[in-house]
């Protein structure tokens, strides 16, 4: 038989059982759509991470206390990072562009009649705007002297400024934090948007000494001389593969310096140094694992869809035994019969695949809209899903088709 005729016969057979054909396709539709949506979600997540790389500011080194060394007993020793470590790094390590220490606290703030709960008060240092890639849009930032003197001033994130003061210029206004700390607004940051899951625009920025002295929940930390959770070190252009010194070299210098200051050996260091690249690769490998997990789950649903096709085709072969007998009696060869049923299975999976692609593309978009997560349709995922659907059709369609082709014409004709 000519291929077109085979397709036509198979198509007619599917049309005779529209509801069943549709239900059979459902498994494939869901499978294909799931593959596309899952990959779209993880691709979206990856794209977000890529943006974070540029959004966080470049060439950052993070110094954090080594938590495994901070047992309750050792808290009283010199373990952990202190505020002064940051300045030692800034002064004594070459290739360092700026050092930032951050200490945050969540507080209620008031300006005039407006009161906001749970605002992040970000205590930081003078290099913060350059290290964190933030621009002042009006007013000014504070300098190191103001940090040293615990000057009660504040810089507002853009959305916070709008919430507190609306269209008014907040410069010179007073903001009351935690009921009794009055800060004078001296500047507003430009809108930065979300970076990862951090909203830089809704925060209040103030000298770190304000937070350490007046807002720190950890009284112990205040007595022990300003422990900090993270020191951000920005290296300058002389550091890098093409520069005067390598990043590893700078890290080693910082390690030596801190080990000396803390009076520990490098093996027993009470701090950990991470680069931005470390964090990104960790995140990337997490999303890669996440993505392959999603793809596998979606793939399983495709296989389940294929088994659904096999199931229905087997029922169909049994139900249509007499039809097979009739076709055999007028001269259909085993090959003709096999092709007919294989084509039906293929049509089911291909049409199901097409609908699934449409559902996947629309579903990805809807999911992105509904969840606020970013979704990116990946062309290869569409091809992959559609190709798998076709493969599943052939694979699971062959057994029933072969079974049909092996029927004996006399038995088939006699079948009631």
């Amino acid at each position, binding site marked *: 038989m000519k291929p077109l005729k085979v397709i036509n016969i198979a198509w007619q057979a599917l049309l005779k059982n529209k509801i069943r054909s549709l239900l059979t396709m459902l498994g494939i539709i869901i499978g294909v759509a799931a593959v596309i949506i899952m990959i779209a979600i993880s691709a979206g997540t990856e794209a977000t991470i890529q943006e974070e790389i540029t959004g966080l500011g470049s060439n950052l080194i993070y110094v954090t206390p080594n938590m495994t060394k901070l047992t309750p007993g050792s808290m009283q020793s010199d373990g952990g990072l202190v505020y002064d470590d940051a300045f030692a790094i800034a002064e004594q390590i070459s290739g360092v562009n700026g050092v930032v220490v951050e200490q945050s606290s969540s507080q209620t703030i008031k300006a005039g009649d407006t009161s906001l709960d749970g605002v992040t008060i970000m205590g930081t240092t003078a290099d913060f705007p350059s290290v964190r890639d933030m621009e002042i849009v009006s007013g000014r930032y504070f300098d190191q002297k103001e940090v040293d003197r615990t000057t009660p001033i504040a810089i507002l994130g853009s959305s916070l400024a709008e919430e507190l003061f609306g269209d008014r210029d907040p410069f010179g206004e007073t903001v009351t934090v935690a009921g009794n700390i009055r800060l004078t607004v001296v500047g507003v940051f430009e809108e930065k948007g979300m970076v990862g899951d951090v909203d830089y625009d809704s925060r209040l920025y103030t000298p770190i000494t304000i937070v350490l002295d007046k807002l720190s929940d950890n009284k112990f930390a205040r007595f022990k001389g300003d422990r900090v959770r993270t020191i951000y070190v920005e290296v300058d252009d002389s550091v890098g593969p093409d520069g005067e010194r390598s990043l590893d070299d700078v890290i080693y210098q910082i390690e030596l310096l801190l080990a000396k200051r803390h009076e520990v050996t490098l093996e027993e260091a009470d701090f950990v140094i991470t680069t931005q690249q470390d964090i990104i690769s960790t995140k990337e490998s997490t999303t890669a694992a996440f993505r392959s997990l999603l793809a596998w789950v979606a793939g399983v649903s495709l296989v389940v869809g294929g088994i659904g096709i096999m199931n229905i085709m087997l029922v169909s072969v049994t139900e249509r035994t007499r039809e097979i007998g009739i076709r*055999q009696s007028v001269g259909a060869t085993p090959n003709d019969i096999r092709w007919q049923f294989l084509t039906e299975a293929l049509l089911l999976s291909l049409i199901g695949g097409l609908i699934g692609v449409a559902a996947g593309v629309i579903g990805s978009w809807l999911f992105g809209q509904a969840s606020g997560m970013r979704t990116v349709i990946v062309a290869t995922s569409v091809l992959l899903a559609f190709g798998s659907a076709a493969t599943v059709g052939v694979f699971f369609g062959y057994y029933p088709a072969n079974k049909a082709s092996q029927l004996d014409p006399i038995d088939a004709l006699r079948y009631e």
Partner: protein
Amino acid sequence: MKTSKPIIDGSDLKKIYQMGDFEVRALDGTSIQVNEGEFVAIMGPSGSGKSTLMNVLGCLMSPTSGQYILDGEDVSVLDKIELAQIRNRKLGFIFQSYNLLARTPALQNVILPLYYDRESSLTAEEQEEKAIKILEAVGLADRIYHEPQELSGGQQQRVSIARALVNDPVMVMADEPTGNLDSKSGAEIMDLLVSLNKEGVTIVMVTHDPAIAKYTDRTIHLLDGKVAQVVKNGKEHK
């Protein structure tokens, strides 16, 4: 006899089934000849082997032994695929239960054998024309696009006769063609078969009804897988 060219030449045909320790000899050395243009009935009680003979002659199964020459070709040695092609090109079938494709218009049912003819030079339009012509010839000009469930038993059997004729077979095998019909439609179907035979179609029919067998030229009686008797029928219907 209109002509003496043999269509069927089966000699010493045996079909033996092994049922555990038993041997069932469905055909036990049957020899049968049918010439071109003949109308032959095969009769016999149940278990006499007439269905088996029908299946062997219809190329639906191969004999265990013996030689079967159909239209000059030894078909007893052919495999499944070759038998299918023989059925497609040389045979037409009429069944007791019509065996039409359900929910499929009469026209498509009639065209079906042409679908499977690899050597057909007919275009789809020509196939349709041919099928329509035959449907008209069997008296179904106004039922061409009706589906089987919309047709009476007699009409369905006419569709199946049209399907049996569409590939210009050398012989039509009819298995109890009137078995599911009332006597009036049965008589009409037999009249149709007789007139087709007069036009030159060779027909071999299996029946258990002597009244139906009387329509044919001769009746072959089977018993225990062997030809017991051959009777020439009167010419009152011819």
